[in-house]
């Protein structure tokens, strides 16, 4: 199968003049077309930096990245991104937000009347697919957090991107809304045949959504390990309580704990509490 994303020896070094921080150390990863990959890791492991590099929002320092067969040089219409929050345009109604790409020359350069009609139909279909038909004329701040993220996903999908990049898109939602969004995004990504690269700090979310889970480690940011998720392609909420799911969750959590550098903190706490007892 063809690759959606191919990374070979990718480095990202933040050089502020007074200090040098290695955010990504020699990353190599191959993501086949149509795969749902999740990236997890402790904070500072570079998972968001990596995603932003794929989006073209950050330039990598060394190495090669190819998306849909061509090297990444800035943002491109083949890749769309969903942010955690505050990325919707509050002055535009829900439909206008979803149709925002239609205002940009990159998407309307070869404008034909059939194209315009297709776009209108596409926006209409996305509204229905994401359950937004009843709020099409509302402003984003009239919607709940979950509904706002549905709009953000619909807007990202509007131009039929081949790769969907998601940066902790459900991080600000409550647990129940999040479950609903998980099943929705799995369904939609299947329907749209797009590759999804999904960043999260929630291990359960990473396993439930991903066909593969990439665990990253901090200081310097690097890939620690990659796990195939031993679950059927079609995911159901009850699978979260099965043995393979729980075993993998335990294994990944242990890896994150081992690489996070948080261990010293617990030792310090123990030392402090011993002193209090004495």
């Amino acid at each position: 199968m063809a690759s959606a994303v191919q990374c070979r020896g990718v480095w990202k070094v933040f050089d502020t003049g007074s200090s040098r921080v290695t955010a990504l150390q020699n990353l190599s990863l191959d993501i086949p077309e149509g795969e749902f990959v999740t990236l997890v890791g402790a904070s500072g492991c570079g998972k968001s930096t990596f995603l932003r590099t794929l989006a073209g929002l950050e330039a990598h320092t060394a190495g090669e990245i190819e998306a849909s067969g061509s090297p990444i040089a800035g943002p491109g219409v083949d890749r769309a991104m969903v942010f955690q929050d505050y990325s919707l345009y509050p002055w535009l109604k829900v439909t206008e937000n979803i149709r925002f790409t239609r205002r940009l020359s990159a998407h309307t350069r070869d404008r034909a009347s059939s194209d315009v009609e297709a776009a209108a139909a596409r926006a209409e279909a996305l509204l229905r697919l994401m359950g937004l038909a009843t709020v099409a004329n509302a402003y984003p701040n009239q919607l709940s957090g979950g509904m706002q993220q549905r709009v953000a996903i619909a807007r990202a999908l509007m131009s039929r991107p081949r790769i969907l990049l998601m940066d902790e898109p459900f991080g600000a939602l409550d647990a129940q809304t999040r479950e609903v969004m998980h099943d929705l995004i799995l369904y939609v990504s299947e329907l749209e045949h797009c590759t999804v690269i999904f960043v999260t700090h929630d291990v359960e979310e990473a396993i439930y959504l991903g066909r593969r889970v990439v665990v990253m480690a901090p200081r310097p940011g690097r890939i620690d390990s990659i796990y195939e998720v031993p679950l059927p392609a079609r995911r159901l909420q009850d699978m979260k309580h099965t043995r393979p799911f729980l075993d993998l969750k335990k294994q990944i959590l242990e890896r994150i704990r081992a690489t996070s550098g948080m261990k010293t903190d617990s030792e310090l706490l123990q030392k402090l509490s011993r002193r209090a007892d004495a």
Partner: protein
Amino acid sequence: MIGHGASLAPSAPDDAAAGAVAPDEIVVPLEPPAARPVRSTLWTIRGFISRRQYWVLATTGVALPLAAWFALAALGTVNKVFLPGPFDVARRVITWFNNDDLLGDVRISCYRVIVGWALSAVIALPIALLIGTYRFVQALLEPLTDFIRYMPAVAFIPLVMLWIGIDEGAKIAIIFIGTFFQMVLMMAEDVRRVPMAQIEAAQTMGATRLEIIAKVIVPSAKPALLDTLRITMGWAWTYLVVAELVAANSGLGYAIIKAQRFLQTDKIFAGIILIGTIGLAMDQGFRLIHRVAFPWLYKRS
């Protein structure tokens, strides 16, 4: 464990709090029991007050000093040269209107304020947009602007007279100097406050730099920019009297200065109150435009 349902149902058995409770064991009454006595929330930090309370308090706040003024004038203990009564001021407004071309003064003052303010707005806006969008423009222009804005506008009067002369241009220039530099800094801050996620979302959708400025940054900052325009309009009015120090022979500020020479305290009062009233009206106008132009800010569900 105390379940949520258990606390809702006072009629549930006491031992229910100790263990698990099945949903059908909980009886929820349909009506709440008698309401608890309500304590005043006036001193609650950021507490709620009703619309009625708001209007009663607002009216009191305006009426109280006004009543004190009436009372002082009626008692006659204060010399009218120091404190003219409300009726003296009202009479003065009428004679001013009938004999001394009050409308002409209002018109010329409004003209100076609006032209000076609009001129700074037109020039400040693109500069602020560049400062707020590009770090290098910020580094280039912001320190200088910060430096100049601390200079008192009054001190520029001799320079303005030397460079521009003493006609209308000079008065507009004073108001311009008084508002422009503040405006640049405040508008630049408005532009900087546009969330980065809004900009980056447009970048990932393939927007060009011009498209990001025109279709994201400007519409996103617009409400804050209008607020800045409203606030600086107030400052423009405060510079009016200063501006009309420069060889003016008309205008509200000029009338106040002239009244001072003839010790017409009632006219000074009238001029100040007129400026305040016009300013208040303009402020309300701006607020109205804000509500009409940015409906999404006023709709919440």
